[in-house]
């Protein structure tokens, strides 16, 4: 085979294939928007939103890949994470109000840690009590996790009431940097950096460690890994807890981003998270990141260009991608 037979698609693949889609979307948006300064602001907002969506969606995708379990109650972790971190921040109001940078940061860290710890514990509880009895029965899984979602949402309503809850932000994350005529909200940059950090950790963990190897092998072929003598079910509890903790962290970051949260936020975000997971392809975190960035960028660009289409744009994106690749962009599950 000579170089002449190289088709457009091989060039496409060599250049990065589907990974280029977010870049393509950004370029098209640049042409449509015209003004570079608003384009940069929107792109940063889109990337930050994408990273938070990635945190919420990655656990869902991995859990499905590893154990064929689809958790419709995943949104409960997101809303609980948001409310717990908001409550911790409200409780540590003294630290937040203090003039010291260190105290501010430690209040935020405490809030995030509380959300993560809750995610770990609730994830363990959820997996052993709610999901374990219905392995391998999709219908009952969907029903039971929906039931769990209802109970979780009602619990939040019972604790915090139905009125919107305002979230305090540490002082050093307020405001924005102004470079020329471009303004970048600091919180968005922070959310992007934190999300990117978590992605790198996850990526290295999955690709460079022994446990990561086992998880990836389990996604490919669970029975084979079990036959080799590994306890995939224990691994699964670990992945489930990790996924729940990430969702709670994502919720906590989202709470700071929105600054006003309601008990329904989890259910509202769930739709977007599902779209992310479907676009990205179930079971791979690279796919999830790709889907999350696409959705984040798309909703910010479309929200600027044609506000009424903002939510429909995600749906159109999903339909288009499913028509092109019925299993999503980078599925790990065949």
């Amino acid at each position, binding site marked *: 085979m000579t170089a002449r037979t190289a088709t457009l698609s091989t060039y496409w693949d060599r250049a990065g294939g589907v990974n280029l889609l977010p870049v393509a979307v950004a370029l098209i948006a640049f042409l449509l928007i015209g003004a570079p300064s608003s384009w940069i602001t929107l792109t940063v907002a889109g990337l930050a939103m994408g990273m938070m969506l990635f945190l919420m969606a990655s656990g869902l995708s991995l859990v499905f890949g590893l154990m064929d379990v689809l958790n419709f109650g995943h949104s409960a972790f997101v809303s609980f994470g948001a409310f717990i971190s908001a409550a911790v921040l409200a409780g540590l109001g003294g630290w937040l109000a203090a003039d010291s940078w260190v105290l501010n940061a430690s209040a935020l860290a405490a809030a995030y840690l509380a959300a993560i710890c809750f995610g770990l514990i609730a994830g363990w509880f959820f997996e052993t009590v709610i999901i374990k*009895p219905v392995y391998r029965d999709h219908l009952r899984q969907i*029903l039971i996790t*929906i039931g769990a979602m209802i*109970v979780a949402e009602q619990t939040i309503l019972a604790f915090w009431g139905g009125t919107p809850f305002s979230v305090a932000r540490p002082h050093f994350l307020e405001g924005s940097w102004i470079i020329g005529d471009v303004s970048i909200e600091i919180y968005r940059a922070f959310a992007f950096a934190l999300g990117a950090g978590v992605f790198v950790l996850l990526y290295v963990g999955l690709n460079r460690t022994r446990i990561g190897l086992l998880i990836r092998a389990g996604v490919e072929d669970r029975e084979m890994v079990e036959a080799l003598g590994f306890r995939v079910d224990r691994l699964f509890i670990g992945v489930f807890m990790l996924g729940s903790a990430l969702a709670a962290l994502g919720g906590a970051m989202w709470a700071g981003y929105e600054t006003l949260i309601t008990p329904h936020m989890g259910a509202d975000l769930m739709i977007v998270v599902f779209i992310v997971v479907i676009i990205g392809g179930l079971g791979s975190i690279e796919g999830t990141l790709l889907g999350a960035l696409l959705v984040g960028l798309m909703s910010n660009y479309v929200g600027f260009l044609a506000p009424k289409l903002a*939510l429909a744009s995600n749906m159109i994106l999903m339909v288009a991608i499913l*028509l092109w690749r019925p299993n999503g962009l980078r599925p790990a599950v065949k």
Partner: protein
Amino acid sequence: MITSDTRHTTGTLVIKSVVALIAALLLFAPFLFQDVRSLEVAARICIFIVLVASFDLLIGYTGIVSFAHTMFFGFGAYGAAILLKQMGPGWTPVLLGALAGVAVSLVFAVAIGLLSLRVKAIFFAMITLAAASVVLVLASQLSQITGGEDGIIYKSPDLFKTATKLLTDADGKVVRLWDVKLNGKLAAYYFVFITSLILFLAMLRFVGSPFGTVLKAIRENEARAEAIGYRVVAYRTAVFCLSATIASLAGTVYAVWLKYTGPDTALSFSIMIDILLMVVIGGMGTMWGAVIGAVLLILAQYYLRDLMGAASEALTGVPLLPELLAPDRWLFWLGIIFILLVYFFPRGIAGTMMTGRKGA
């Protein structure tokens, strides 16, 4: 999995007689319970029986979960509502609205079915959820057409006005039968009752037909049904379209009865959760279960809240319990009951009774 054995066991007889009793109560509801609220409850039960049974066609007979059922219900309701508002009261807008609702529902059902049933059944659940939420947002944003969050208020056909006299005596007053005025409200209730009955009987007939048997075969063993030569995707898409059509018709009837259509009564996600709870509590894959589930849940919705309010007040002072027992928290308890039911009685009330005590 769920098995629906239709042999005439005692359980089957009990379930069928309960359903017959419910039907009789609904038939004479205006004469038995003579206040406005009870009639409202009875009409809501009729419509939800149809809605839940059409959802049961999907979940119970093909094993796929759709979250877009309220979307179809909403298409039917909004179709009638928009036309009744634009063209004024009359039968033409109702008919045209019903047709338009069904047409839009069919287009959506075919598109969603072909797009997602091909891949994985679990994709279907996610995609229907996404589609339904987008439609809900659109309905509240396109306020020129749909009335936005406030919905649409309109008049139903003249026959159903409370002032309409169906029969008059010599003095020109409305005839009373067992102390009930034979007025338009009564006609409206019987319109709801009879259309619901026809739709329900049609579904019952459909489930017993050869087509229904194929659906059961697909539910029990998809690969085997495919191997015998039935095209699973085609059958699933067809039944999805059918259930969408019936949901849309039920929506039209509800819109005519309520004389108001808005996101909360026709499209919201909480209606979807109600339907899901009704079908699981009643029993999937039996059709009779839909009747029992709808009746139980709607009665609970209307009357359990009062009870919970009383309990909550009685417990003031105890930490957290009053908040959990507050009337608004009734979904919390239903959610717990729902989870327990899915664990221990996945066949629901009707399914468990009808198959006897052969292992859960």
